[in-house]
């Protein structure tokens, strides 16, 4: 009870402290903080268009946040969500550009399945190396990220290249594109957000209601006790990495099928790394991750509006940085809370 309460309290207090610090900075640069935050809110939620934009930015962040968060719950630090997302989207794009002959009912699930399988397989390499040789997944996933990045840039400048200008792959078939939930001007909000929320529910059920989740958590908490209890440590490390990678691959799928409709460099654009921050802020809890992703998504969407009134958009990076710092160092916050309670 108390533990759950703290899990919510720490991120919330961290956000409040971050806002307080940014307020001081905004005052120091001679702007009115109320105007700045007003613009920020207006930019992220002030219009249908703003809301759609926020949701679009939030969707992949939820999925990469789930990918990293799931890894943390299983005791693996998957820094490779970026690479898994790139590989998933790239391979899915290659196939899906030829799916014109398939009806959407088949083409959409099939494309998603390809992206998830590729993400899972790519992450499983790091899992396998850890299980068999003890190679740390932080090192191997970082290396796999570079392989994915350069492989993708080779593919879109070489074999898959279409048109001139930005290197990009051919557009995927119409039947493989996600249906559009809301269209405001040029902004199309796809069903990706629904997929992301379903993924969060899936992760919650898997971790809390199934024997697989039990085993994965046991291995993450105490591999010695897990092995003693008849749970295969190596199998579960590979499985945990694979599931984490599948979620990252799914992030690639929603970006590919719902936003860009082709593979290009900005498709991932560091969203895999954002997943680490979001998992931290969301305390590795699926619901917490949804909120954390919305927070970051909204901040980023609203930052342009803030820039219009003269407050640099980098202010949101400051807010984000402070929140992450405080959540990561949650002992600081906890100590302050406990001291307060003692003083009372």
């Amino acid at each position, binding site marked *: 009870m108390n533990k759950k309460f703290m899990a919510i309290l720490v991120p919330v207090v961290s956000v409040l402290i971050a806002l307080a610090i940014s307020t001081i900075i905004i005052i120091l640069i001679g702007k009115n903080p109320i105007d700045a935050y007003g613009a920020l809110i207006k930019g992220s939620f002030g219009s249908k268009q703003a809301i759609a934009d926020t949701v679009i930015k939030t969707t992949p962040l939820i999925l990469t946040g789930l990918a990293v968060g799931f890894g943390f719950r299983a005791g693996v630090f998957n820094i490779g969500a970026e690479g898994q997302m790139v590989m998933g989207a790239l391979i899915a794009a290659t196939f899906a550009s030829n799916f014109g002959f398939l009806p959407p009912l088949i083409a959409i699930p099939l494309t998603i399945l390809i992206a998830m399988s590729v993400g899972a397989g790519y992450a499983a390499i790091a899992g396998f190396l850890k299980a068999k040789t003890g190679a740390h997944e932080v090192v191997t996933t970082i290396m796999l990220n570079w392989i994915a990045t350069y492989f993708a840039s080779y593919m879109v400048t070489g074999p898959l290249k279409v048109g001139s200008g930005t290197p990009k792959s051919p557009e995927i078939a119409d039947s493989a594109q996600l249906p559009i939930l809301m269209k405001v001007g040029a902004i199309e909000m796809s069903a990706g957000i629904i997929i992301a929320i379903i993924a969060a529910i899936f992760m919650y059920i898997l971790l809390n*209601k*199934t*024997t697989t989740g039990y085993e994965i*958590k046991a291995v993450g*908490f105490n591999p*010695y*006790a897990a092995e*003693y*209890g*008849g749970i295969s440590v190596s199998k579960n490390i590979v499985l945990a990495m694979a599931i984490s990678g599948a979620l990252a691959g799914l992030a690639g799928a929603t970006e590919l099928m719902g936003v860009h409709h082709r593979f290009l460099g900005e498709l991932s654009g560091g969203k895999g790394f954002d997943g680490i921050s979001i998992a931290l802020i969301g305390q590795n809890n699926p619901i917490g991750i949804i909120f954390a992703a919305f927070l970051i998504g909204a901040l980023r969407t609203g930052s342009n509006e803030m820039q219009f009134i003269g407050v640099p958009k980098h202010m949101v990076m400051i807010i984000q940085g402070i929140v992450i710092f405080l959540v990561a160092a949650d002992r600081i916050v906890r100590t302050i809370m406990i001291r307060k309670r003692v003083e009372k």
Partner: protein
Amino acid sequence: MYAVEMVNIVKKFPGVLANDHVTIRVKKGEIHAIVGENGAGKSTLMNQLYGLYHPDEGEIFINGEKVTIRGPKDAIKNGIGMVHQHFMLVDTLTVAENVVLGSEPVKGLNFDMKKARQDVKDLSEKYGLFVDVDAKIEDIPVGMQQRVEIIKTLYRGANIIILDEPTAVLTPQEVEELFEIMRKLKDSGKTILFISHKLHEVMEISDRITVMRLGKVTGELETSKTNPKEIARHMVGREVVLRVTKEPHEPKEVVFEIKDLVVKDNRGLTAVNGISFNVRKGEIVGIAGVAGNGQTELVEAITGLRKIESGNIYFEGKDVTGFNPKQLRELGMAHIPEDRLKHGLIKEFEAYYNVILGQHYKYPFSNGTFLYHDNIFNYTKDLMEEFDVRPRKIDHLGGNFSGGNQQKLVVGREIKTNPKFLVVAQPTRGLDVGAIEFIHKQILKMRSLDAGILLISMELEEIFSLSDRILVMYEGEIMGEVKPEETTIEEVGLMMTGHRFEEVRRG
């Protein structure tokens, strides 16, 4: 005149009283052995002398002067050096570089390699500590690495040298060389504190002995006026703990058997060296021995947690060598592990998840895919009631129970699987009298239900009061088999320190 005096030292760790008013006096220029089982508090005591821990109570005197040792720096200033069980050397640097590391000779602004090499050579020759000054640590044998560690302490001007189980990693020849060096150091006026639990070594090299048991000093002896039997008695203790009454019970057929089992430890050294024995249904076979003589590795091999080098394991006559823990559990083996926090419990899991570990994938806890939480909760409530686990909160985290209640959870979990064969390792380590009695009763209840039980314990009283047969283990081998009613604690104590049954009986 005492070189070292530690008076009334008390050191507490969470849940453990590691040193309980320990007083030790070491004369100048003597080799003083500190003897005791693993966990007796020897290393803790020495780590306080070297400043790695700070005593909660008590005083330390060096050469008669009261000192406060805040860290190794203070210890070095007071002329104290320590060679740890695990060497603190940089593998990729040379011997000379390692010795001077942290107090390098300099010439102008540069590191004076020439002087470093010469200093190390001088020390090496003076005390007969042969080392190759230019060799890299990773390329030299363990015995030489240890000499480097000793030179390191001398280079920093140590007059009092602590050697923490220095022979544990050495071959017999290297041990002889080490003893030669220790004698030379002693002749040149150094005081040596020597931690060990091998009695023949202590008899050979030491002048005086302090024996520790469970955090207390149980004996201060002059080596020339004592014998291994007396030391063993101080080491294993004689205070009579409560004895549970054991009903006579006729054992049935053999349920478990091992033949010529060989197992290696984590360092790749042979820990279990060709052991054979069997356990019958309805009988308790106890394995006595000083900790660190291969019992841990034996248990891990039997329960599928450690690789078997050679030999065979049979369960109800079936060869189960190389089976994993899950397969062994399926056959009806259960295991109460010696380290409940490492193997026995998941501290971050609630009690209800801890009590299904190993059974979690089976009905009534699961259908193979989904967990049946209602069944799990009810089962946990029953188990906590039956085994009197407190507090009776099924969602209390494993790590938040007291040691005794954690052990009750583990014991309850394993016993409730109705095993045909139960491996019980150090079941009452660190528990209070009430919990010990409860757990002993549970083990005897399993015996009356015709489970075969293998009991491994460092507590001789426990072995004596529960076992039907006793096997004594020393350096990976069985020294002999005795029945508790036909032997004495002294006899078993001697076997625990490396004397075979035949020698002991011959007298």
